[in-house]
């Protein structure tokens, strides 16, 4: 690992260690924050006991479903909008403001419409993630070099094979940016909705544990979420880097 990598590890370990020491020494009240080692211990025990496994599976299942729907639908919508310049121009101001508006204020509106079920939660996850995917798709298709379409014409390729064999690979890096954004937005959309109001799920369980002063469960589940979200993002980031390197190597 590089020097910077080591330093980063030192910073992270130092921060966690400082928290541990502060909790153990009683500088931080046990009722406010429990030591990180205890969080990890509580998480392991929770997972072994299987007490919340159903809720955990439900939430992560919803997150994954929301991400997949957002990525697929966002890509399709992006392609359609890209083909219709006038619609795109009209929609541009909406895309520019979309993430400026806290969309969660519409979550309570959905509950009476769809009932207190998984549908409004899934919808919130999809809605927060899909526009990032649409915008990335539009960006990606914009940046397909002109010369590629000319190449396709020279080779008398059909529309579909042009799209699949030239445009898609050329736009792929931007599409992947969209996927990365969709993953983090999907997490936020689903978990935040569960937090506000939901019949079940990880967000609901954490908020219940908070109300019951059950700090061990609360911190254990928070740790789980933080670890899973960080892991997902790190994996995507690493994949992105590898891919960029390979592209760079292929060019030269």
């Amino acid at each position, binding site marked *: 690992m590089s020097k*910077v990598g080591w*330093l*980063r590890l030192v*910073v*992270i370990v130092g921060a966690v260690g400082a928290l541990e020491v502060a909790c153990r020494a009683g500088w931080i009240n046990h*009722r*406010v*924050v429990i030591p990180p080692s205890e969080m990890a211990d509580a998480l392991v025990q929770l997972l072994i006991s299987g007490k919340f496994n159903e809720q955990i599976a439900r939430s992560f299942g919803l997150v994954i479903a929301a991400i997949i729907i957002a990525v697929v639908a966002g890509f399709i919508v992006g392609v359609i909008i890209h083909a219709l310049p*006038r*619609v795109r*121009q*009209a*929609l541009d*101001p*909406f895309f*520019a*403001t979309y*993430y*400026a*508006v*806290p969309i*969660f*204020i*519409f979550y*309570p*509106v959905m*509950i*009476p*419409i769809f009932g207190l079920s998984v549908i409004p939660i899934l919808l919130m996850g999809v809605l927060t993630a899909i526009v990032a995917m649409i915008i990335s798709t539009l960006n990606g298709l914009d940046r397909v070099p002109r010369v590629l379409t000319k190449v396709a014409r020279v080779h008398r390729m059909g529309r579909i094979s042009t799209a699949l064999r030239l445009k898609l690979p050329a736009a792929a890096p931007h599409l992947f940016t969209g996927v990365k954004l969709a993953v*983090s937005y999907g*997490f*936020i959309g689903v*978990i*935040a909705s569960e*937090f*506000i*109001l939901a019949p079940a799920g990880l*967000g609901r369980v*954490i*908020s219940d*544990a*908070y109300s019951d002063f059950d*700090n061990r469960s*609360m911190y254990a589940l*928070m740790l789980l*979420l*933080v670890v899973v*979200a*960080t892991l997902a*993002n*790190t994996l995507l*980031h690493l994949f992105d880097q590898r891919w960029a390197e390979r592209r760079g190597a292929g060019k030269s």
Partner: protein
Amino acid sequence: MTATRRAFDTVIILAIVLAAWQGLHQWVGSTALPAPMPTLAYLAKLVPTERFAESAWATLVTFFWALLLSYGLGLLLGVWMGIHRLSGAVGEPILISLYTLPKVTLYPVVLLIFGLTLPGRVTFGAMHGVLPVALLTMNSIRNIPPVYVKAARTLHLSHRQTISTVLFPAAFPEIVSGLRIGFTLTLLGVLLAEMFASKAGLGALIINAMQLLQNQEMIAVAIVLFLFAAAANAVLLWMEHRLHRRV
């Protein structure tokens, strides 16, 4: 001509949204989703009331302090990490992974520390806003072409002159982008905090309306927040475009 056409297209989309709302209303019934026109009429009646003004004021005060904290801390962190390369290299991935974290999960921790108080909501709002401000400020400083610094040295500018006449103007447009995103996310954080646990503010008003099944009020408040966020974003975007063009 293109401007009027674009405005026309935007109006058409608004009309489609209203029509879709009306259609959904017909389909699910008025208890689930009230019709658009009565809701807009309700909105016009709700906004001048004292109850609404009180909540809006509470949200604005919270938002103001949260924004101040986001901007202050974010700029400080960003400038430090931009100038000191090593801290930037060490800290950037940490900040990015914190940025992608669903911070709502951490709200109970904030609540345990501060209780149901204004500082708690301010902290939670700032938690959302600090990171984009810091990250974009850092990038803006890093992206200053080295030739600018060399030019400043050739001209024998003092340290302070270099910062105020070269570095700051060069980094400013991108810093403004960071401030815009910070604005947005801080607002999101403040509203989430109010929705989850608070008795004051517009977020609490929405949740209250939801529990009392007052859908008109819920939608009316959501529309007000939507308009506020969209208008603020438009102003900041406009500033950003002007700055970018100037450079």
